[in-house]
């Protein structure tokens, strides 16, 4: 798939947070075959310089970074965070999060659209974390976004695709826009389902980072996403309301 002119083979974007160690994080990124990882910017102490070692490992992995504006509740916070991230990571890419401050981590869609417009006008390439609401998504595209990242379920909830019907309609409305399910994915089957719906990629973190064996889970997600893409391309059967026999109905032996 292609996002902002960059061709990506992997359809799994992986977060770098919540792993038991940086070493496990690095191994998980490799096991996932991820070409893009999300990162954040956070306060750095002069004494401990925690971020420097993390940054060294990310550079060693040779992956593209997608900085986020996690923890931002206002447009101003998100824009300023994006500006700091652009300078630190030397990228125009920004995963835009403007979230509800009541602890739900739900996207503040109004703030997200406003921030998307400001950032797009300033040359950022915005990956907006959003709901699947069609009008919101239209506004984000009008604001300059060329990618959309609708949630599957609340961040870190692991619930999967809470509204596959809405996601399907969004896919149908914008067949040519790269669509990435971001947030709430818990199992590889959720990721496969997103790909079967025709989504271009999945972005996840908690499902791998907090798994009992993150490296194995990362590999499982990679396989599931490949399966979902292959299934989509293989022309899945249409579901029916009623049964249809799988075995021939002619030539059944009379054994009554």
């Amino acid at each position, binding site marked *: 798939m292609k996002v902002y002119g960059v061709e990506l083979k992997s359809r799994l974007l992986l977060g770098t947070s919540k792993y038991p160690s940086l070493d496990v994080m690095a191994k998980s990124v490799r096991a996932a075959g991820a070409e893009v990882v999300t990162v954040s910017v*956070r306060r*750095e102490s*002069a004494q401990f310089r925690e971020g420097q070692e*993390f*940054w060294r490992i990310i550079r060693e992995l040779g992956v593209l970074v997608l900085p986020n504006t996690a923890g931002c509740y206002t447009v101003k916070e998100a824009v*300023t965070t994006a500006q700091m991230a652009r*300078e*630190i990571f030397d990228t125009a890419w920004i995963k835009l999060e403007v979230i509800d401050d009541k602890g739900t981590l739900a996207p503040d869609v109004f703030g997200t659209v406003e921030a998307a417009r400001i950032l797009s006008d300033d040359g950022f390439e915005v990956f907006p974390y959003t709901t699947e609401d069609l009008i919101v998504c239209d506004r984000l595209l009008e604001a300059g976004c060329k990618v959309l990242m609708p949630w599957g379920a609340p961040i870190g909830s692991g619930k999967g695709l809470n509204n596959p019907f809405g996601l399907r309609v969004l896919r149908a409305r914008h067949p040519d826009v790269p669509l990435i399910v971001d947030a709430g994915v818990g199992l590889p089957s959720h990721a496969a389902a997103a790909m079967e719906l025709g989504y271009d990629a999945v972005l996840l973190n908690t499902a791998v980072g907090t798994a009992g064996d993150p490296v194995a889970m990362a590999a499982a997600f990679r396989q599931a996403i490949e399966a979902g893409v292959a299934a989509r391309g293989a022309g899945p059967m249409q579901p029916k309301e009623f049964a249809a026999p799988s075995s021939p109905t002619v030539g059944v032996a009379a054994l009554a």
Partner: protein
Amino acid sequence: MRLVVNGVEQEIAADTLAAALLRLDYGEAKVATALNGEFVPARRRGETALRDGDRVEIVAPRQGG
């Protein structure tokens, strides 16, 4: 000069943002800065004057989802 650096109030003998980073011993660490909520690009830190009570945020790459 009294500054609030990453949420902590401290006395720092520095009159520009660049000088404050040096005083705080950030050295060559990869960081970005904001002053009173506004981003200050690295190239402008040397000419960014500080005032008593200014809020400085110094951030670096970190894990994120």
